[in-house]
């Protein structure tokens, strides 16, 4: 039984957050729901004197009936399912490794801090240089200026210098799964610094006594990781996974970063579009009704996935 005094105190602690949330989060959400049921709602149309919009589910129907809806939904889900586990495991390994070494510890730790002060514009530009094949690939008379750093690397490592020894990652004629691979690499790599930071913070809050005990026993590293670190870090891991999924469903700018506004390779524009991409398209044309409907559809999907995540993490998390 929760006593009244504690109730009252809890709400006091929550008060500042709740007030701000009501104004800047809850109210916009209510507005989003309202707009999603106003058919064809547009702020500009309303300002132009259209006083009323019919109420109905047509916005939702239009979003789902959009020629690119299915592909966008598929891309969004695939990206999420692929990137979250990979980036989480990699970040965990890096954080644990960083935490365990002694020589060069400071130097290496500083290196992993540098991504935070890198401007986001630079991050987007790097990848073009890595995977992009510059030239008129796939034509009768191919003239290629550059195969990209990754293809150069493949040639170097495989020891086969033949110019034909390359993979068409993102250019004209490229395979859907090659595109997907690049996106996964890019998103994982983009997500790593944040996850490393969070997990390192979490690692530091683990009581050192557990490790001291393991040291005395000279428990193997792998065992320490799976038997001590992961269970004790599970709240942070749950956090990283759940927020990773939520963020993953909102993937958009990374696609623009690699494929440009066309959202796909030259022969298949729009092939890599995502749900948030659809929302942006609607917003650009000032169709807030449709954009809201699309956002709510996306919200429904994320909600289901997060419920599953929470349910799993409740079972597996050691608090």
């Amino acid at each position, binding site marked *: 039984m929760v006593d009244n005094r504690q109730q009252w105190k809890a709400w006091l602690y929550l008060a*500042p957050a709740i007030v701000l949330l009501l104004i*800047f989060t809850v109210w916009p959400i209510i507005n989003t729901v309202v707009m999603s049921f106003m058919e064809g709602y547009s702020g500009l149309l309303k300002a132009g004197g259209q006083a009323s919009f019919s109420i109905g589910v047509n916005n939702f129907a239009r979003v789902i009936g959009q020629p690119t809806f299915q592909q966008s939904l598929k891309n969004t889900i695939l990206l999420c399912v692929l990137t979250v586990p990979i980036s989480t495991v990699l970040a965990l390994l890096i954080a644990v490794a960083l935490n365990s*070494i002694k020589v060069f510890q400071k130097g290496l730790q500083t290196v*992993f801090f540098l991504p935070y002060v890198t401007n986001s514009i630079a991050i987007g*530009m790097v990848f073009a240089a890595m995977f992009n094949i510059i030239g008129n690939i796939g034509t009768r008379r191919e003239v290629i*200026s550059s195969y990209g750093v990754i293809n150069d690397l493949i040639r170097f490592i495989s020891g086969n210098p033949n110019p034909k020894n390359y993979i068409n990652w993102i250019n004209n004629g490229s395979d859907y799964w090659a595109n997907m691979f690049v996106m996964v690499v890019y998103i994982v*790599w983009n997500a790593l610094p944040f996850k490393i930071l969070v997990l390192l913070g*979490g690692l530091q*809050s683990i009581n050192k006594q557990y490790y001291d005990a393991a040291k005395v026993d000279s428990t193997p590293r792998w065992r320490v990781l799976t038997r001590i670190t992961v269970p004790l870090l599970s709240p942070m891991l749950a956090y990283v996974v759940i927020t990773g999924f939520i963020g993953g469903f909102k993937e958009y700018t990374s696609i623009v970063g690699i494929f440009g506004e066309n959202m796909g390779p030259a022969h298949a524009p729009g092939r890599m579009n995502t749900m948030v991409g659809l929302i942006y398209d609607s917003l650009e044309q000032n169709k807030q009704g449709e954009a809201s409907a699309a956002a709510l559809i996306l919200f429904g999907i994320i909600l289901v996935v997060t419920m599953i995540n929470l349910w799993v993490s409740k079972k597996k998390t050691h608090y």
Partner: protein
Amino acid sequence: MSENTTKIMQARDMKKKGTTQKVGKVFGLIGVYAFLLIMAIIVLFPFYWMLISSLKSLAEYRLSPPTFIPRAFLFSNYIDAFTTANLGRLFLNTMYVGVVSTLLSLVITIFTAFAFARLEFKGKELLFAALLATMMIPGELFTITNFSTVISFGWLNTYTVLIVPFLVSIFYIYLLRQNFLQIPNELYLAAKVDGTSDFKYLWKVMVPLSLPTLISITILKMMGAWNSYIWPRLVANDEAHRMITNGLRNAFTTTSGDVNYPVQMAAVALVSAPLFLVFVFLRKYIMSGVSRSGIKG
């Protein structure tokens, strides 16, 4: 987990595998370093790109394939960056917004996370789930309504409009709550028995123990101020309040819509340098961890 079983198991293993383990350990260490080094190079690549881009001429920057080492190091880009953009003002604005919003946000985050992690109240689970759910709606849709709201508050072109709407971040509340949950419940119960008030316990025990996470939040929040662009441009795009990313995007745009990226990169590097130093200093606190002496787990 049972520590005793592990202990006995390990003791048995040790007798047999003394030397093998030593060799294994050396290899393991080499593996760890190799792994870290490779990941470091990968993670660092954009940073390197930012630096070399800031030293290229615009013509070289637009070359295909791109050069990995500038043909000529154009340090004049840094001078150009300083003279074209009002860097000082942009920096101060961003610093002010960054520091104030980080401090206020930390206080709110600590209170809220504490309530969710340690206090009991009706509807706690439901409220928390609802908060999580708000993260799932793409933020672009909030912009339209929030824009209306801040206009009706008369907040356009103020620092307030850059700080207040984003003080509460479910993202950070959730992160800190998870960290608070890591702290053993026994500590709290013991403090209760000692008659320590919740408030005192929060500031004397939980906050110090969560310092690494709080610093992580500080870093993320500060970088947020440095990278924020869409909202500031919408609501405070005047000389007196303009923020760094917004200012830098405008200053180096040529008429034909092209951006002079090298000079822009130089400007970015310049304004990020002080931040970098602060973070290197904070790193010590994240990495050194929290002394747990005297507290039983």
